[in-house]
């Protein structure tokens, strides 16, 4: 990441609810993870989905005092385990060996999902195939006839957390926006997504429509031209 991008990101992060702010280039995966991490309120209880959202944990600061939840039964999850720390009884939702932090707790699966389903998590961060303008999420199944479906905890997280942030690229590999008027992939949850972090813009799913909080390497007008979803500036 260039120094130029860093300074623009810092500016954008410092005024998250102002007018859309352009930066020079689309954000890379790590820059996007850093931005999500910065937006999570201090003291939050957070669940990070498998894949790209896991990167967010690399950028949470001690001062934020964030507690990470993993659906397989733990609060206070620490970084990925290495070397002698690796313990097959201590894994995350992606089945990767992790560590425990002081103050951690363990609980069985029904309690763990009560934490998710009961609205106790402040934020969950998920990947997605598509998000609709109304906040519907598709991230569990492509719907392809030969695909073996697997859902895991995606539907519970999507419907249970107070805020659902999605991290994804704005466009598919063939250039189609993944933020769409209506889902074409099978739904994971209905009206559940509150924010969409992409490499080209951050979108807020608001009562009056989809707001563009900031853009990266693209202007608001260019973004409007790219997408079918009506956009609101700021």
């Amino acid at each position, binding site marked *: 990441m260039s120094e130029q991008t860093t300074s623009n990101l810092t500016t954008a992060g410092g005024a998250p609810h102002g007018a859309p702010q352009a930066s020079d280039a689309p954000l890379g995966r790590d820059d996007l993870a850093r931005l999500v991490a910065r937006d999570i309120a201090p003291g939050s209880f957070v669940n990070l989905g498998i894949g790209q959202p896991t990167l967010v944990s690399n950028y949470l600061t001690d001062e934020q005092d964030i507690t990470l939840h993993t659906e*397989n*039964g733990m609060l206070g999850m620490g970084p990925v385990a290495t070397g002698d720390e690796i313990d097959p009884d201590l*894994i995350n939702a992606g089945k990767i060996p992790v560590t425990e932090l002081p103050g951690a707790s363990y*609980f069985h699966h029904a309690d763990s*999902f009560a934490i998710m*389903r009961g609205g106790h998590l402040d934020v969950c961060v998920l990947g997605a195939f598509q998000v609709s303008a109304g906040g519907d999420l598709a991230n569990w199944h492509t719907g392809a006839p030969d695909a*073996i479906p697997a859902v895991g905890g995606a*539907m519970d997280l999507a419907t249970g957390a107070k805020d659902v942030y999605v991290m994804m690229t704005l466009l598919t590999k063939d250039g189609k926006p993944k933020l769409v008027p209506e889902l074409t992939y*099978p739904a994971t949850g209905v009206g559940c997504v509150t924010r969409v972090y992409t490499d080209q813009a951050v979108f807020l799913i608001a009562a009056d429509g989809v707001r563009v909080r900031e853009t990266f390497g693209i202007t608001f007008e260019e973004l409007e031209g790219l997408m079918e979803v009506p956009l609101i500036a700021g």
Partner: protein
Amino acid sequence: MLEFKDTVAEAVAGIEDGSIVMIGGFGNAGQPFELIDALLQSGATGLTVVNNNAGQADEGLALLIKEGRVRKMICSFPRQSDSWHFDAKYRAGQIELELVPQGNLAERIRAAGAGIGGFFTPTGYGTMLAEGKETRFLDGKWQVFETPIHADVALIKALTADRKGNLVYRKTARNFGPIMAAAAKRTIAQVSEIVPTGGLDPENVITPGIYVNTIVKVG
């Protein structure tokens, strides 16, 4: 009546063909490999297995599937990079799949153990996993009716048992163990250590012995 067995073969004896078998574990953590191997050796077949996944690589539940002992899987996440035995059976139409969101899986198991006849939850509303299910608008949200999952047998793994059958687990290997122990008619637990009655602090017991029928020490 609580029993202590010397071998895993004795512990799983009497599991009948066609049984509904809950198997603890999330991936490999908490998976009772020795009990599963003994179940495979016992020859029991036509089983319905309840587990979060559908077996990894060439061990445990994956072998039970490979050998054609599992008629139906009830799970949340069958497809993994190393779930090739399940994938092959599924594509060949030789295994039935009931796919359940993980929180519904856990709560349906919990409900069975707690004598609850069903519950409404927002999870899955508006998705293909809720098609055909009763829905109601409750507490400001659309919710889906889900029913309990009962089992004939649960195979679980814990760290330590005492002579009253009380269990404690280890870290994230606890996962489904406590709720499956309550949901099954017969619970068989493999443990790393058995301590005398009074050897566990009652404040720290996770699964009370009332839920446990058979205990075997492994390793």
